[in-house]
C-alpha cells in the first residue's frame, strides 16, 4: 500500500509539486501518467526517500522509506539506468546490494535468471546495452522479493519480447497481491496493464481513479489524457 499525502516540493526556487495526493493499493497495478516534466519522477524520488518534500508525506505500508528496516524486502524500485557502476560486473553489483539487506548471495543468481541475464553475469555494467541495463535494474529491484514495486518508465529501452514479458510480470505481481506503481507516458501500454490511473500535469494531480473512470467517455486513454492535460497555444512540448 502506497499513500502519498499532500506532497509539495520546491527545487531551486521553482515549485515542482503542488499538493500531490493519491494511493496505490495492493493487488492492483496503478499507472502514474503525465507529460515530460510533470513531476512523476520527482514524486517517485520523494516516495523512495531520495529527495525530501517541503511538506506532505509519502508512505509505504504506513512508513516513510527511510524508516524501513531492510527496505529492499518491502519495496523494489526501478528508476532509470541500472544503478550499477560501469566498472563493476552485474553479479558483483547484485552481491553488494544483497549483502546490504542481509539477503543470501544466491538471490543474485536467482534474479539474474528471472530477468534473463545469467549469461552476462560476469560482464561489466558499462558494456551493457540499454535493454540489458534496465533488466539489471529490475533484477536489483527483485532481490528482496518485495511486496511493493515502484517502476519509472519500465518498458523504456526494452525490445518487444521484453515489453511483453514485463507486461505479464507486472500483471502477475499484482495478481499475487503486490502493490505495483508504475509511471509511464506510453498510453497504449498503460491501458493494457493498469487497473487504476493517476494523471499528473505541471506538478498537480489532474485526476485519479480506475482506468474506466479516467478514460470516461473518451474512446481511448490517450484521448482522455490529452483532453485532461491540454497544453496552451504552442507546440506539443
Amino acid at each position, binding site marked *: 500500500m502506497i499513500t502519498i499525502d499532500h506532497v509539495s516540493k520546491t527545487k531551486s526556487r521553482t515549485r515542482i509539486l503542488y499538493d500531490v495526493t493519491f494511493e496505490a493499493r495492493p493487488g492492483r497495478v496503478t499507472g502514474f501518467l503525465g507529460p515530460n516534466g510533470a513531476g512523476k519522477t520527482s514524486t517517485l524520488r520523494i516516495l523512495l526517500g531520495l529527495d525530501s518534500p517541503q511538506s506532505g508525506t509519502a508512505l509505504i505500508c504506513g512508513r516513510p522509506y*527511510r524508516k524501513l528496516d531492510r*527496505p529492499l524486502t518491502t519495496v523494489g524500485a526501478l528508476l532509470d539506468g541500472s544503478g550499477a*557502476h560501469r566498472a*563493476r*560486473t552485474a553479479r558483483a553489483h547484485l552481491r553488494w546490494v544483497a549483502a546490504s539487506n542481509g539477503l543470501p548471495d544466491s538471490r543474485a543468481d536467482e534474479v539474474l535468471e528471472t530477468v534473463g541475464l545469467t549469461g552476462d553475469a560476469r560482464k561489466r555494467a558499462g558494456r551493457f546495452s540499454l535493454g540489458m541495463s534496465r533488466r539489471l535494474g529490475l533484477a536489483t529491484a527483485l532481490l528482496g522479493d518485495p511486496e511493493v514495486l515502484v517502476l519509472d518508465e519500465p518498458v523504456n529501452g526494452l525490445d518487444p519480447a521484453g515489453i511483453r514479458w514485463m507486461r505479464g510480470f507486472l500483471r502477475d505481481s499484482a495478481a499475487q497481491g503486490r502493490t505495483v506503481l508504475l509511471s509511464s507516458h506510453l498510453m497504449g501500454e498503460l491501458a493494457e496493464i493498469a487497473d487504476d490511473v493517476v494523471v499528473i500535469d505541471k506538478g498537480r494531480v489532474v485526476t485519479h481513479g480506475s482506468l474506466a473512470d479516467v478514460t470516461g467517455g473518451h474512446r481511448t486513454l490517450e484521448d482522455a489524457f490529452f483532453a485532461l492535460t491540454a497544453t496552451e497555444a504552442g507546440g506539443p512540448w
Partner: protein
Amino acid sequence: MNTVRAELRKLLTLPSLRRTALLTWAATALLTYAYASAEAHGEPLGDDTALAPLGYTQAGFLVLGVLAATSEYQDGDQIRATLLAMPRRLPLQAAKALALAALTLPVAAATAATSTLPAGGVAWTPVATAYLTLTALLAAAVASAVRRALPAAIALLGLYFVAGPLLRAGSSASAAYLPDTAALDPSHGAAATIAWTLSALTLAALIFRRRDA
C-alpha cells in the same frame, strides 16, 4: 553489520582502487630505493629518509579516498542504488568510513613499512600507517561533498602539494595547523591530522544527510 559488509564488497570489487593501491606501493618502493641509493653515493637527500618517500606517495592515498567516494556519483548513478538499499544516511556514512579504513589499513601498513624499514625507522611504522589511513578518509570525505573525482583531486592535491608548502614557507606557525604536517614532522602533526579528518568526516556526513540524492 549489513551496511559495512555491503560497503566492503563495493570497495573490493572496484578495479581502480586495487590499481591505485598497487601503484602507490610501487612508487613508494621506487622512491625508497632512490633515497637509499643517494645515501650510498654519499649524497643524502635530506634527513628523515624513513618517512620522506611517504611525503610524495601519500598522494596515492588521497586518490584512493577520492576514487572510493566518487564511485557513487560517477560512471553510473550508483548513489541511488545505495540509498535505496540503505536509506539511513548517517549510519551509511559511518559504515563507508569504517569499510574504507578497514581496507586502507593493510595497504597503508605495507606502504609505510616499505618506506620505513629499509631506512631503519621501524618505530615510525605504526604512526605512518595511521597517518596514511586518515589521509584516505579525509580525501573520501572531501570527495563525497564535491562528488566529482577530478575537481576533488585538484583541490586535495593542490592543498597538500602546492598551497601547503607555500603556507609553510610563509609562516612556520601555520605548520601546526595543516593536515599533512604529520608526514614531515610526526611528533607534532598528529593532532592536526586527526582534527582535520574528523571535521571533514562530520561535515561530509551532515551535507550528505540533507542533500537530495
